[in-house]
């Protein structure tokens, strides 16, 4: 700590400062400022008042930490920063409310447990967070902006005492740009205000420009950095027949062959281009062996439909068949097999009331002679695999039950076509006692 004039070449000067100084001495220098150094905060405050009263404007105090009361001593006006932060906070509030209203109530309203699309209580947390977020970021960046930062270079950084000014010493810097600036006058003022050292600070007259290649490389890099954005923009606003690029495939696209699709690799290997490989001749896959084909498929050894039930038809089977028929078949075919179940009635009602494009193929009447003549194997086959509009029921009805249904269909056929003479006496009387439709008109 020397109380005298501070000269370049102090012992604690790093070598790179010496290099700069050497460079400076050869180049043209202009006076940047006069710097006065002070030892204590109180001396600095006192000196600040004198510089302020002398009417300077382009000057500042350098202090390693904020000193309370220096604003008054320097005549610094209150910063407008709080108002900027207030504006940012309010715009954060507005942004958050608009964002939540737009996304959840306007653009894509969707009901979540009956809550209103837009209501303040549920939207307050995010609103508060965005208010703080906007205010904090603005507070920081506006502080930097008002201080004209970031500015990575300042002539002051080359001052050999700067290391102390950011540690334990204090300084007043009066810049040469000030309209009242006269070197001798400023030096005298600072010395008389109690400075332990007063020194002019020079800066190069001309700031060295960046190398030309820097601009070239920078331009190329800047343009190149826009390319991905341009490509994204193009992709958004044009159509293409190519599949969208999925970086993460999830399970949307799986590397597999679909049934019936060709597979060139297998085709080359075995001369069979089917992706679904056929079993080797003479083999049966596990679980696919069928012991009794008549029972399973309703086919005999020659491949013709069986004419005899492969199961024992008894009262129990018929009862089961009646129950299953009521569940699976009656909705279309009707409980009596007359082809007028609920579905048929509904379809006809729609057609009557002007159902558009109705092309309704009514369900078969199960006691038609055509069906009565069918072998039981073929009826079983229809239940299993379906026919025309009817779908197969193999997946829903076990084999045993399908035979039960076929047996019950036979019962319905028998019941529908029974001659009057064969009816039991009590049933015949009951039927005859009822008025026949249309007879009253005769």
């Amino acid at each position, binding site marked *: 700590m020397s109380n005298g004039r501070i000269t370049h070449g102090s012992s604690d000067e790093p070598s790179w400062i010496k290099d700069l100084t050497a460079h400076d001495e050869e180049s043209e220098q202009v006076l940047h400022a006069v710097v006065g150094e002070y030892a*204590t905060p109180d001396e600095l405050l006192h000196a600040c008042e004198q510089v302020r009263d002398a009417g300077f404007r382009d000057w500042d105090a350098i202090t390693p930490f904020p000193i309370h009361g220096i604003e008054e001593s320097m005549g610094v006006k209150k910063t407008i920063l709080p108002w900027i932060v207030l504006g940012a906070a309010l715009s954060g509030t507005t942004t958050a409310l608009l964002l939540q209203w737009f996304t959840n109530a306007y653009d894509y309203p969707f009901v979540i447990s009956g809550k209103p699309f837009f209501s303040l209580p549920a939207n307050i947390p995010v609103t508060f967070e965005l208010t703080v977020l906007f205010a904090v970021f603005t507070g*920081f960046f506006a*502080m*930097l902006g008002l201080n004209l930062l970031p500015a990575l270079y300042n002539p002051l950084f080359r001052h050999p005492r700067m290391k102390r000014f950011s540690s334990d010493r204090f300084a007043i810097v009066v810049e040469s740009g000030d309209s009242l600036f006269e070197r001798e006058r400023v030096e005298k003022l600072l010395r008389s205000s109690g400075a332990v050292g007063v020194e002019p600070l020079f800066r190069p007259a001309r700031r060295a420009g960046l190398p030309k290649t820097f601009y070239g490389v920078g331009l190329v890099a800047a343009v190149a950095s826009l390319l991905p954005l341009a490509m994204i923009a193009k992709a958004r606003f044009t159509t293409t027949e190519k599949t969208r690029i999925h970086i993460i495939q999830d399970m949307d696209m799986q590397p597999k062959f679909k049934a019936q699709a060709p597979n060139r690799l297998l085709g080359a290997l075995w001369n069979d281009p089917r992706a679904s490989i056929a079993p080797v001749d003479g083999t049966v896959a596990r679980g696919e062996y069928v012991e009794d084909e008549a029972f399973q498929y309703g086919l005999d050894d020659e491949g013709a439909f069986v004419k005899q039930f492969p199961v024992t038809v008894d009262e129990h089977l018929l009862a089961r068949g009646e129950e299953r028929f009521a569940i699976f078949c009656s909705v279309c075919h009707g409980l009596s097999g007359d082809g007028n179940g609920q579905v048929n009635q509904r379809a006809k009602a729609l057609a009557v009331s002007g159902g558009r494009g109705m092309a309704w193929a009514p369900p078969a009447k199960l006691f038609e002679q055509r069906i009565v003549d069918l072998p039981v194997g073929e009826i079983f086959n229809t239940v299993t695999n379906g026919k025309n509009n009817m779908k197969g029921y193999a997946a829903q009805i076990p084999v045993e039950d399908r035979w039960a249904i076929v047996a019950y269909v036979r019962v319905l056929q028998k019941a529908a076509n029974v001659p009057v003479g064969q009816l039991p006496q009590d049933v015949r009387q009951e039927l005859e006692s009822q008025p026949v439709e249309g007879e009253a008109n005769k």
Partner: protein
Amino acid sequence: MVLVRHMPAGLDNTSDDPSARQALIVGNNTYESVTDKVCGAVEDPRIDKRWLAMFVVALGVLATFFGLIVYLISTGVGVWGNNNPVAWGWPIVNFVFWVGIAHAGTLISAILFLLRQDWRTSINRFAEAMTIFAVVCAGTFPGIHVGRIWVAYWLFPIPNQMSMWPNFRSPLLWDVFAVSTYASCSLVFWYMGMVPDLATLRDRAKHPLRRFAYGVLSLGWRHNARAWHRYESAYGMLAGLCTPLVLSVHTIVSFDFAVAQLPGWHTTIFPPYFVAGAIFSGFAMVITVAVPARAMYGMKDIITLRHLENMNKVILATGMMVGYAYSMEFFIAWYGGNRYEQFAFINRATGPYWWAYWIMVSCNVISPQIFWFKKARTSIPIMMVVAIFVNVGMWFERFVITVTSLSRDFLPSSWDYFRPTWVDMGMLVGSFGLFFTLFLLFLRFLPMIAIAEVKTVMPRPAKASGAPEPAETAASLN
């Protein structure tokens, strides 16, 4: 006549004699010695062997953590013990644990700043750094818990071809906004506080590369009074904004639980109870990291015993708040007459996870009671043990809340017992690796004490020429 009493020489400034104001910085420190000491820790070209040993261990644990994350993502969340109904499991326990720790930093910085608690200046940089690193750990867990991590950006309202938006009426979405706001604001607050100190490091730097790095980081700060004026205005406003932010963030984290209908979660006491718990665990973590660091770097005269004692008092107070919340939960379960809630709480204390509940109570409520004694408050070994107990207890608190409640939901047929897998345990340990790696890097490369702020609470020297240099070097004091 003014009675001026000077504290006894030495490092003990814990006396409560009201006739003399205790110094916050002891050991004949001057502005210059504080700068030298804090910057010296960063500038020393030698690598401390203890630091290196800890760093290697922390880095190893961190590598394990990353390995486990890769394993998790490549395999699926089934590698965790999470089941149905305990779908949240340890990842969310760890998230709440770390987010809680993260709260002390901004609390010390912001709330104590607004309350003009000058003692904060010695520990706020530590605590803020701890906040940032704890938030990093906290953010990792929900991030990897979402399952399909590659669509984690769906959490944010980004326009997309599906025209889908997040649901702003869900506490989990609030949490995304709260935690990310907290992380980014804490980072700004921490960085802004560090800019002047980085400028000091820049001005002292001898190597051009070092000067360049700190020069860029310090943004050209040159300690001028006009800039300080705006800086202080901004700092005050940031403190004022971050104070409600701290309270809101853990409140919203508690909403993740409290807004759900699950017995044991659905209580209005959660927001204040969570905030008290967060402060509690955060201060314990500051003690856990500050005590070794101050010994290692010879900062005992800047982070004094008085600072530690103050933090222990906060731990005692918040520990009792947490204890009050534990008992109040039981009281309300009985008083509210809700049989499901009553079951949930009796099950907590006596059910299959009774051991976790009683670990929590002993660590969080009973162990800090020793701080009623000044001897314990100012004893380094005792405070370290209690701080670690509190860290453990607060982890168990989150475990008890999350796992006990979820494992016994409304449908008894879906009840299940949660068992962590080795991946769960590895990730909890691994997150400490992440935390300590970042923290050790911080100690090595950034000023660990807020140099400029500490100087504002030191007595102003009367006359510079007469001010004596420190009689003894700082290192000899430790």
